């Protein structure tokens, strides 16, 4: 339970509304990614897609504590983070399709989704690369005397790359307002977290580098919400960086085409049993939210994302000139011959 919510007892009404918003967001993320994976599998959308289905509580639970002026950096599995920060879902879907009007004009694709207008500073195709960027963003905001924080999402795989150490040490040294979020979904590509990570894991490493950390069940939306509330409050109070270690599970393969044969069916089934969306819905029902309202939220999210996909299918490809634009102002490239 976070500092904002009394431990036990009926939540205040606006609190329930907040959790309903969280449920809606989680449904939207899942519906978006279901469409995205289908689009990729059918060959409609080019490139690869990494889905975070099953992990929605982490993105939603963290980002609902952020303001529009706060920033996030993300990784290759970034649709949920982007949507949770308020990125335009239609522009994102167009981007996945490589169409004009895409969030990055069709030049980024799934792994490079960004929406700077809502503080989403970019997904990243390089594991761990968002960590130093988040640190610098926080440092820049501090220098500009802007009262904003940065959340930095990465996977369990990133904690074995150098930038994890360099970035956490950096943030601690300069007491930067950064919330590091390690989404530990049990795998880095085809390798289990435990096979690649020695010692007690992300939270222990963070503590040793001087970044206080919390570990939570990342499939429990209320737990993530509470932990994020606590950590964000500490950061906003000037306490320096924090790390949230959220244990979860990815339901899909590493990419949309990975059958994930490296894990037993029972393990996947057990994870699906702990569906963060279903459990949050149940909790809300327990708090008196109407079953019809809950069902409608899911249906609306699905309808929204279906519509975005339709729009993406119908959208034209980008203008070829885009290939040569936005490289640089000084010494910009000349377009290729025909």
């Amino acid at each position: 339970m976070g500092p904002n919510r009394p431990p036990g007892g009926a939540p205040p009404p606006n609190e329930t509304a907040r959790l309903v918003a969280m449920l809606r967001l989680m449904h939207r993320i899942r519906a978006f990614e279901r469409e995205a994976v289908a689009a990729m599998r059918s060959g409609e959308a080019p490139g690869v897609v990494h889905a975070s289905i099953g992990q929605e509580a982490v993105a939603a639970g963290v980002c609902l504590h952020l303001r529009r002026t706060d920033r996030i950096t993300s990784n290759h599995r970034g649709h949920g983070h982007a949507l949770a920060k308020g990125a335009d879902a239609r522009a994102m879907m167009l981007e996945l399709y490589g169409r004009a009007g895409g969030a990055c004009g069709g030049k980024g694709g799934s792994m490079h989704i960004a929406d700077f207008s809502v503080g989403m500073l970019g997904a990243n195709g390089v594991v761990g690369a968002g960590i130093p960027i988040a640190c610098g963003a926080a440092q820049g905001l501090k220098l500009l005397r802007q009262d904003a924080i940065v959340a930095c999402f990465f996977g369990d795989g990133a904690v074995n790359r150098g930038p994890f150490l360099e970035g956490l040490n950096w943030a601690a040294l300069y007491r930067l307002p950064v919330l590091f979020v390690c989404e530990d979904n049990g795998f880095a590509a085809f390798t289990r977290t435990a096979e690649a990570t020695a010692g007690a894991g992300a939270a222990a490493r963070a503590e040793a580098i001087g970044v206080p950390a919390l570990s939570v069940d990342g499939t429990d939306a209320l737990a993530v919400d509470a932990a994020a509330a606590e950590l964000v409050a500490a950061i906003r109070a000037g306490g320096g960086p924090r790390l949230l270690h959220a244990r979860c599970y990815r339901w899909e393969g590493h990419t949309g085409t990975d059958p994930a044969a490296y894990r037993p069916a029972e393990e996947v089934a057990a994870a699906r049993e702990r569906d963060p969306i279903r459990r949050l819905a149940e909790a809300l029902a327990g708090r008196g939210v109407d079953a019809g309202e809950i069902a409608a939220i899911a249906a609306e999210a699905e309808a929204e994302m279906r519509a975005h996909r339709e729009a993406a299918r119908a959208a034209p490809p980008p203008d070829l000139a885009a290939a040569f634009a936005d490289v640089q102002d000084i010494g910009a490239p000349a377009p290729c011959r025909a």
Partner: protein
Amino acid sequence: MPRLTFAEATRRALAAEMRRDPTVWALGEDLGRGGIFGQYRGLAEEFGPERIVSTPISEACIMGAGLGAALVGTRPVIEMRIADFTLCAMDELVSQIAKVRYMFGGQGRARLVVRMPGGMWRNSAAQHSQCLEAWLVHVPGLVVAAPGTAQDAASLLKAAIRCDDPVVLMESKNLWTAEGEVEEDAPPAEFGRARIARQGGEVTVVTWAASVPVVEAAAERSGVSAEVIDLRSLWPWDEAAVVASAARTRRLLVVHEAVTVGGFGAEVVARVIERLGPGGLRAVERLGAPRAPVPFAPVLEDAVRATPERVAEAIRRVAAA
């Protein structure tokens, strides 16, 4: 001779070398699951996890550990997964591996192979599509090879493993599933010896790696008698073969997937001019990518790559000049 994909050809070559020499081993992410292109499939089962080592996502340590292991007498094959990730291990490759023998006065050798699957691959966008061979040719100490056929993928890998210098293999992601005839018992390739992929008398077209099939197809359709030279290795490179051909055709075109500006094509052009004198040639051109990152959308990606149409047009242009 069996027809094999590049992935399968190199898989068999590596297996053969590992059977032959117990000091050969491989390290990289997810190798135990066969590697992401299947080029290690089944090897963990045959050789065990101590010789097919699945590593954490720690590129700097993958590269640096490969060096350490070479210094005590093993021959590691270092897998970078995607060439772009080598950017996370550049100090280890350039300031350590490439220099160790020299700066310690010959005491140690980095007998190792770095496999870098590079270039465009199905709309992978800016961070997964780079071609950085020009960088590595610029680095003293490194041998650099770039196979354009399945046979060379196997024979250059064998040669790299047996080589006493560190060898960087620029493997093309786009070629992993391409097939070619492969003589499995073929001897290791010889570095610095090009292959005349197509004979011709009007234009000399120099290329390597994934551009080889593109250029072959373009030469076919160009209507020009183009001599296509597949360099196979970029350092050392077969200056003699290129100079001989260019001296005959007096027209030189270099085609590569990498950005033209600062690409290895510049070195080829400069060297041929130095050897033949400017008067030795009538026309020279380089065809590579514009100085722009690789975009995601298929139409945009096509706009920045040397398609067979663009290559054919360039061949005709140089022939006509």
